[in-house]
């Protein structure tokens, strides 16, 4: 599952509920669609710009997304993308350490940043008349960062404490890390975004600056401005502050190590005394949304909803209602990714049900689903909700901004983003079953058991 980690205390829930990530065609009677609010253009230096208008409140959000995340890091330097994200709040040639955040705060705004496998993003939310100041500062740190050895020492301790908090203090996160590492044989997605501890401890000033100079440039960045703004004015400001920064002619092409054919089902158990509730997790390697080719990802999006979306889902019906094998079950898929991603299932067994039985119940439910096929009424309900989300999401302009930013950062186009809702609506039952057959294959799967320290493993 994709993870996104942030510098501050209130990370944006980027990979939130399934529906939050989706757009859908408007109802006939909807007065305006999301698309009507969106303007996009390109600066001469290759910086992409998207403006999402919402004039209901005098507030603006600026985001700058870099097409550089943990999966773009050099070998042996896991965590450097996220480390740099923290360091971007230190001194530049024109600003003192911490001055950017202090200035945002002194203007009554909020700022933060986050890093994922495929991107790193920075944002501020402020009163709409402060946009120019925000652009001036954000453009400054795109090229003028200075790092002292002291910054490195202190901030490295901060990210190690962040790893403690997110991962080492949390057996579920440690288990997830092992699952990911087992899933990917060659892709960088097998390494945690925050980094392996032993590599984080060695991250240097040179490592951070190398990553910065390689990837932080206008032709590797996307500006997304949302809120009470005029697109023409945003263009004028963007040209003034970002447009003057030269493109990096040496920007590397985004070519990543790809997965070989996966030919062996993998299993693992992770034991930890801090586990209160054991569970079974299963992941399958799965295709992502690709430019001009999103049908399979759309089918998987609907499949995840069908299998795991709440009380009406197939797994809930089989594992929580028909039998009481599970306390809880779910399915996850998010196709917004540069390279192949995963389709995930989880089953939390009921009291008195062991993990072997829970896994068997899951496999039986999946086999039954493959035999029974799609419930057409359920598919229609899911599509209805997707259409409605087109209305609800207009109430959350920053959510729209996030969707555009993340999709553009993984290489999709504005057209791909705007086509996505209709592609979701066009998916047929046959396409869902075909996607299920393609993806739910044992040989490309990992099955993990999260266990208490004292639990006996059942013989396989």
């Amino acid at each position: 599952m994709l993870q996104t980690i942030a510098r501050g205390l209130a990370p944006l829930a980027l990979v939130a509920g399934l529906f939050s990530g989706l757009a859908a065609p408007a109802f006939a009677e909807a007065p305006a669609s999301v698309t009507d609010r969106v303007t996009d253009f390109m600066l001469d230096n290759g910086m992409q710009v998207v403006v999402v208008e919402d004039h209901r409140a005098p507030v603006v959000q600026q985001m700058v997304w870099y097409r550089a995340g943990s999966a773009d890091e050099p070998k042996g330097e896991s965590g450097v993308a996220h480390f740099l994200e923290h360091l971007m709040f230190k001194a530049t040639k024109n600003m003192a350490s911490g001055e950017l955040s202090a200035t945002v705060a002194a203007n009554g705004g909020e700022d933060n940043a986050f890093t994922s496998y495929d991107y790193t993003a920075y944002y501020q939310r402020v009163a709409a008349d402060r946009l120019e100041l925000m652009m001036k500062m954000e453009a400054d740190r795109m090229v003028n960062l200075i790092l002292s050895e002291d910054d490195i020492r202190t901030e490295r301790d901060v990210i190690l404490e962040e790893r403690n908090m997110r991962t080492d203090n949390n057996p579920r996160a440690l288990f997830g890390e092992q699952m990911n590492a087992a899933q990917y044989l060659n892709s960088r997605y097998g390494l945690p975004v925050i980094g392996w501890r032993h590599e984080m401890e060695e991250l240097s000033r040179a490592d951070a600056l190398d990553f910065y100079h390689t990837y932080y440039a206008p032709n590797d960045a996307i500006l997304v401005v949302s809120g009470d703004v005029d697109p023409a004015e945003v263009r004028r400001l963007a040209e003034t502050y970002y447009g003057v920064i030269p493109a990096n002619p040496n920007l590397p092409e985004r070519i990543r190590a790809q997965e070989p054919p996966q030919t062996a089902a993998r299993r693992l158990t992770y034991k930890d005394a801090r586990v209160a509730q054991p569970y079974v997790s299963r992941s399958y390697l799965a295709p992502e949304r690709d430019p001009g080719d999103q049908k399979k990802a759309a089918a998987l999006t609907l499949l995840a909803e069908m299998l795991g979306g709440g009380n009406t889902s197939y797994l809930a019906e089989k594992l929580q209602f028909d039998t009481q094998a599970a306390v809880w079950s779910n399915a996850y898929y998010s196709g917004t990714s540069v390279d192949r991603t995963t389709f995930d299932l989880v089953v939390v067994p009921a009291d008195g049900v062991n993990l072997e039985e829970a896994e068997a119940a899951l496999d039986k439910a999946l086999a039954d689903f493959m035999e029974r096929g799609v419930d057409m009424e359920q598919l229609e309900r899911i599509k209805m909700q997707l259409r409605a989300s087109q209305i609800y999401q207009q109430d959350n302009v920053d959510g729209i901004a996030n969707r555009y930013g993340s999709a553009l950062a993984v290489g999709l186009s504005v057209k791909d983003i705007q086509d996505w809702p209709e592609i979701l609506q066009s998916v047929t039952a046959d396409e869902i079953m075909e996607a299920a057959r393609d993806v739910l294959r044992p040989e490309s799967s990992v099955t993990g058991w999260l266990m208490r320290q004292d639990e006996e493993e059942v013989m396989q």
Partner: protein
Amino acid sequence: MNAPKMRPLIAALAGLVALLTALPALAEVKIQEVTTPKGIKAWLVEEHSIPFAALELRFKGGTSLDLPGKRGATYLMSGLLEEGAADLDARAFARAQESLAASFSYDVGDDALSVSARFLSENRDEAVELLRTSLMEPRFDQDAIDRVRAQVISGIMSDAKDPRDIAANAFTQMAYGEHPYATDGKGTVESVNALTRDDILAAHKGVFARDRLYIGAVGDITPEELSTLLDNLLGDLPETGAPFPGPADVSIDGGVTVVPFDTPQSVALFGQRGIERDDDDFFAAYVMNQILGAGGFESRLMTEVREKRGLTYGIYSYLNPKDWAAVYMGSVASSNDKVAEAIKLVKEEWTRLRDDGVTEKELEDAKTYLTGAYPLRFDGNGEIASILAGMQLQGLPIDYIATRNDKVEAVTLDDVNRVAKELLDPDHLHFVVVGKPDGLESTASN
């Protein structure tokens, strides 16, 4: 992982900061008061540009209404509201909700149960009728009770191994004596296992009543439409429910409580007595806390503990004026070999602010931030509906949003420094530390 419907009630710290009273403030928000023919009162902001509406209902009371020996009844009951109503069982109810593309969420905390609904204009009547059945005619089928009970128990067992929850439970147990605040509203494995369907019915009767209801609505709906909607939805509520618990006797001594737990990073929760929301000095205290430890990167605690020394990823403090007690709380997490130093710094900052006060520049920066950030909260129909209900629950006037920033601006340096002297009490600031902290032991007074 949390069970699906039962979102964690002991909010993450960020959530608690936000909880720190909705101090809404956008002059442009035009609130109308609507009183229905049946006498139900609501605050409405009309917003017709998107064809849906958000409705927020707050019932004062929350898990603190649990009857003696029935801890967890209100929490379990709230998890069952969407598990079948009228002639629909749990799955039929969920299918009906999906078909309407409406969303209803039910959440309960120490002081209130909230219902957050949003529904499309095109099928509003059907959606509201479905919502009505969940509030007024929940089935509480035995199989649903057993299923959700198992989810709640799974959550309680997970909390018992989560350092943050362990710390929160240890702190409340120490601070609140016999008051319901002293124990987790989810209940214990034993108390939840013992709950019967009659207990759930009693909890339902205790919560849902007219005399404790506060309503905010925002979106594509007129006052007349809202009035009819509310009478249909809530007109049959009984006049009164369970008695409120009354004020808690807060007792917090200084010192340290170490709860041994084998994990690499210690989690420390600290707190002392707080200040009531309706205290004349509340705004001065609020501005003071902005400088000392509120979210963001500029606070003194963040600067000293994270930015200068790298001892933590996050540290913050927050005023927590609950309905029946006021406390001033904070939290920090540091690896076991560093947490003692982090705690020492917190005590030093607490003392320094009490003794030396804040500077004029700190005060001005805090005010600019607080007044400028206020409009950022009005961030969507659901958020505004929630703010409207919260304002009424706190007894704030309908014009509060327009005047709130003036109250912040009116705080003087003398106010902050006087309140700092009166409020900050490092000798009675107690730290609960969960982990294996080096160089820290529980103090003797425990």
